[in-house]
């Protein structure tokens, strides 16, 4: 597809998202918000997994950490939601850096298991109500509505646009990453870590950077999530969620349209086919296996930069 056509498609898609909430009833507005929030988390996962090629299966941890940061600051300390946003970005980002620093050198599969471990420990911390802050298995509920300059924005449409702005910011970061030094470094790192190291890329720093950035964005999505439901609870951030985000990125092909498609299939289709909800994961399982067999690089594989096709050699990564 030519670049101008894809740009046109992207603009049309975003325009569609702008008018979408006015065409939906309140139940579908909630579904649309979910779509935006999970798309942001999936994009943040893509930075770590798709762009930097690190097998991270604990992205729900950072999503949950953002949500809980907002919830705790709002319910326990009375901060307005908007004021919690910077903290809900910084705390997960900091944890992303601290947690990933000792493990980024691990080989793929080990990294995968350790990140699953982080996720499970995180949920256990939430359920055991550490420090009396997290509210145990029930979580925290009754958060304030979004308010800006004294105007309460309690409606779902307001939350929708909040989520939309967050998505735009994320897409902006992704676009910048594509064209910046850091983005190229991550790409080389994914293709061949040893070659990247040998041309002077500090692979350790960039790996930690990818974790930190991905965690910060996921944390921001967590704030929107907490705002939407006025509540947080541990089961929203179980490691099954992380598996879904992991699969969305790879089934989608680590490209922006692919990820949107993946989020739609994983989270929106089940809302449309509600009566078949017990079959949900059974069907997803088959979808995952068949997609990988038919299109091992995902439905809509990402391409990096403007490298002519004849220079790109098929390769095995990981």
């Amino acid at each position, binding site marked *: 597809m030519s670049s101008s056509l894809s740009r046109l498609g992207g603009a049309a898609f975003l325009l569609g998202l702008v008018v979408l909430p006015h065409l939906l009833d309140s139940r579908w507005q909630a579904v649309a918000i979910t779509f935006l929030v999970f798309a942001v988390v999936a994009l943040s996962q893509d930075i770590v*997994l798709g762009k930097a090629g690190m*097998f991270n299966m604990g992205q729900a941890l950072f999503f949950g950490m953002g949500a809980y940061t907002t919830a705790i600051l709002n319910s326990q300390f009375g901060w307005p939601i908007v004021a919690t946003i910077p903290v809900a970005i910084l705390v997960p980002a900091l944890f992303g850096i601290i947690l990933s620093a*000792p*493990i980024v050198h*691990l*080989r*793929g*599969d*080990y990294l*995968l*298991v*350790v990140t*699953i*471990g*982080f996720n*499970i*420990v995180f949920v*256990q*911390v939430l*359920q*055991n109500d550490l420090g009396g802050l997290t509210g145990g298995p029930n979580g925290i509920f009754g958060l304030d509505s979004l308010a800006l300059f004294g105007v309460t924005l309690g409606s779902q449409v307001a939350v929708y646009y909040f989520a939309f702005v967050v998505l735009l910011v994320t897409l902006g970061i992704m676009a910048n990453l594509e064209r910046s030094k850091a983005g190229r470094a991550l790409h080389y790192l994914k293709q061949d870590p*040893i070659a990247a190291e040998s041309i002077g890329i500090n692979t350790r720093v960039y790996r930690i950077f990818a974790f930190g950035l991905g965690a910060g964005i996921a944390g921001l999505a967590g704030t929107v999530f907490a705002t939407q439901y006025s509540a947080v609870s541990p089961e929203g951030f179980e490691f*099954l969620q992380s*598996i879904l985000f*992991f*699969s969305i990125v*790879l*089934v989608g092909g680590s490209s922006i349209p692919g990820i949107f498609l993946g989020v739609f299939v994983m989270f929106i289709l089940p809302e449309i086919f509600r009566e078949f909800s*017990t*079959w*949900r*994961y*059974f069907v*997803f*399982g*088959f*979808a*995952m*296996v068949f*997609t*990988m*067999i038919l299109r*091992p*690089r995902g439905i809509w594989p990402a391409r990096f930069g403007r490298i002519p096709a004849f220079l790109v050699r098929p390769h*095995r*990564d*990981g």
Partner: protein
Amino acid sequence: MDTFFQQLANGLTIGSIYALVALGYTMVYGVLKLINFAHGALVAASAFIGLTIYATIMGESSSLLAVIAIFALVAAATACLGILLERFAYRPLRQAPRLSAVVSALGASLILQNGIMLVWGPQMRIFPQLVPQVYWNIGGVVISLLQVIILLLSVLLMAALYFFIEKTRMGAAIRASAIDQDAARLMGINVNRVITLIFVIGSSLGAIGGLFIGLYYRGITFEMGWQYGLYAFIAAIIGGIGNIPGAMLGGLLLGLFTAFISGYISSTWADAFTFLLLILILIVRPTGLLGERVAQKV
């Protein structure tokens, strides 16, 4: 001191179950370099298959012969599932990028896990008591006949597997395929058959582990595969992935560790401590305690 010996007995029992399941992970990883995510679900499936076989065939009698028949039938059925799994979810992706195979494995695991739910229902099922409830009280430490059977049978199976891998021609073919598949093929080894064999062995050992889980913990759920699978995989990593004695050692150590954590510190934090142990081991000894036996390509 009573607590110590009691937890030692419990830990060895749980540990040998972990070890049996861990073997399925480590053997597959050794040859395919793939985390066999569906193995945990396979183990859960074996417990449910055992439930059905018990209910339909062995209704009243619980003689020794009947119990042995249940074990054999469940192992055979699970081995068939393992072969299907390899044939349809893993084999088409041998040449694909690593991550594609991981997603396929996760997909297969969702299929199996939710297949169990659709067939046997989402609620917890109680596993029958196949082993007579005999307890011995040795100086305040209670040990059941079941624990002794689990431990002895696991050790026996693992010893048999070790002998098979180290001393037979087929075992040599498995070891050769783990080192270099192409070279093994050039030496006339049918690598596809080796891989099928690995899935048969791994799945039937996992099936025995699954039955032990049912017998020991009684309550079985369709989701339990994640929990036991993850722990068994951690055991395999602790011992050194791809390393068969390592998986046995890792399983026993992990079982003891979790038992002592629950006995002395707190069972609500058991997962956290387990993963802390895993992370520490990976930082200090990145290839596990006995070293990994996986050919690395740079």
